[in-house]
């Protein structure tokens, strides 16, 4: 984005982008392997299964977000790639090589943890040089590589500081530089933005997106519980819940065509309504007939209807839903309307209303048939998850 405008005060080599090790330069361990593959990876702690038969492939150069609530197994999956947990069964591959039995320091990955874990006794430049020294990079190369990595995250001027003299966002950048300095094929990011405040977070998101454009060969596994981060950054999202992979697809697929109730409610907001299929293209919400694409669902089957709140309109129209207003929230540019339709809660995000309806008054909402998605009822253990 602002690649041209970034200052370049350091005497960095002509090739500013440290991607795969350039020929002629000594690499830490052959060419850094890119791409991750989980093959039936199961992890349990004392009989408690925290990751259940995970099968997932992250292509070289792909950003995969592991999205899920806490305790869903997403961090465990990342730690299995890093080598800090040993799978009870299954294999982990990095760049096609089985690394399941390798200790963390032989895996050649880059990792950024939630707390950054910058070494407090080392200056910024020594923090970044740490991995290079550990990989026995020739001494003469180290200063150049450190400068390069710090340059990449815009921290070149802070090389002589100690971590305690940096703000949270700056520490974050240094942690990323430290992970990238060893030119890993795989970068693991464990909730990297959760320790930052909201404004810094959106800035860092843009920064991470830029970094990925500059390092197109690096596979990134990004663990987060924040759907905005996942939707913004990821090429694909793997949705995790209760130790299992629930769904995997591009952000657009998951948002537009979620396959399970859990995905629908976790990736963006969703109205989930229990319906019965009454015919080809028609369902019933109780006695209320609605027109939606039914796909292969057979008449008589129960299903869950999913409509995004911002696709619900106010007033009469196709698929009208009449009910009473239970809550009105003003959110600046929008109003969120909560209504009770035949005992089912329905949310609508509407452009700011001049005269929002009063609580308890009758209201009519509608949605276009093509905006609705029919999900198998109660798919993938989603009890308790509702709009």
């Amino acid at each position, binding site marked *: 984005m602002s690649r041209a405008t970034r200052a370049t005060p350091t005497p960095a080599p002509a090739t500013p982008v440290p991607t795969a090790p350039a020929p002629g330069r000594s690499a830490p361990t052959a060419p850094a392997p890119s791409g991750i593959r989980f093959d039936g990876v199961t992890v349990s702690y004392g009989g408690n299964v925290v990751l259940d038969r995970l099968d997932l492939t992250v292509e070289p150069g792909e950003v995969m977000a592991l999205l899920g609530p806490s305790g869903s197994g997403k961090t465990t999956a990342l730690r299995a790639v890093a080598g800090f947990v040993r799978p009870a069964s299954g294999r982990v591959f990095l760049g096609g090589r089985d690394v399941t039995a390798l200790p963390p320091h032989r895996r050649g990955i880059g990792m950024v943890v939630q707390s950054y874990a910058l070494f407090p006794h080392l200056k910024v430049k020594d923090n970044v040089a740490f991995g290079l020294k*550990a990989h026995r990079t020739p001494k003469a190369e180290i200063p150049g590589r450190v400068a390069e990595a710090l340059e990449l995250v815009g921290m070149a001027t802070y090389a002589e500081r100690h971590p305690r003299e940096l703000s949270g966002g700056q520490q974050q950048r240094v942690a990323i530089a430290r992970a990238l300095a060893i030119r890993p094929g795989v970068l693991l990011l464990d909730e990297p933005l959760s320790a930052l405040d909201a404004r810094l977070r959106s800035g860092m998101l843009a920064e991470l997106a830029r970094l990925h454009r500059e390092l197109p060969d690096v596979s990134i596994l990004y663990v987060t519980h924040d759907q905005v981060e996942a939707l913004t950054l990821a090429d694909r999202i793997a949705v995790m819940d209760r130790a299992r992979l629930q769904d995997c697809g591009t952000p657009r697929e998951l948002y537009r065509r979620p396959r399970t109730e859990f995905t629908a409610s976790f990736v963006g907001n969703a109205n989930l309504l229990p319906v019965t299929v009454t015919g080809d293209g028609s369902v019933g919400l109780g006695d209320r007939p609605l027109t939606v694409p039914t796909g292969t669902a057979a008449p008589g089957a129960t299903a869950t209807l999913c409509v995004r709140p911002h696709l619900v309109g106010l007033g009469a129209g196709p698929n009208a839903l009449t009910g009473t207003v239970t809550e009105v929230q003003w959110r600046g540019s929008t109003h969120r309307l909560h209504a009770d339709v035949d005992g089912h809660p329905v949310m609508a995000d509407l452009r700011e209303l001049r005269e929002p309806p009063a609580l308890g008054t009758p209201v009519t909402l509608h949605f276009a048939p093509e905006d609705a998605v029919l999900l198998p009822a109660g798919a993938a253990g989603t009890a308790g998850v509702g709009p």
Partner: protein
Amino acid sequence: MLVHSRAGKWATWAVFLLLFVPLFAVPLLVILAASLATHWSGAFPSGPTVERYAAATSGDSLQALTTSLVTAVTASVLALTLGGWAALAAASLRTRGKRFLDALFILPVAVPSVVVGLAVLVAYSKPPVLLNGTRWIVILAHTVLVTAFAYQSVAAAVRRLDPMYEQAAAGLGASPARVLWRVRLPLLLPSLTSAAGLCFALSMGELSATMMLYPPDWTPLPVQIFAATDRGSLFTGAALAVVLMTTTLLVLAAVSRIRTRASYR
């Protein structure tokens, strides 16, 4: 500050001084006064002199001070190495092994030092390991006595160490040895130095086990102080005590300077 009102603060200070002065300050001041006196028949000593200090810092006494310093430094270094090593090892053990090590290293604290002295004496008075009559038996006993403290304080620091640092280092490709030398030990440096100070101070003052073990050519200063007091030369003893106290404090101050520079957090 916990106490906010002015009166409350004054009251707190008053209670503190009331407890501190008679318990800590007066005895030490009395020793200092006695070391400078020639007579002490009334309430206060009389006939100020510095002659005793001349004696206390030369000849046999100087020899004893050197003996004490060498013993304490050697014992502290050994104790720190053994205790620190054990504490680091304990951190990677399961609960059972950890409990066993904890129990093992509390033994020298739990057992009276006289008993430790006797045990060392009996154990090393016959071949194959004949240490009795050499300086090594004194150093050995001191090491046994202070290792426990080194273990305790390093173990506490290891428990507080954020495992994220080790994992970050390993993730960057550092072998376990590199993680130990470049990350864990530097981060533990403040506790290692404070443990060293503690070991040194304890060894400098150790008397009961030393009494049973010291050979004639290896007399630490506390033994000299005891001997002087025992034969009635209280003022000589007091001067030696002040020398012992000052030396120990100077060394501790130097160690704490290292610690301040080493504490990064």
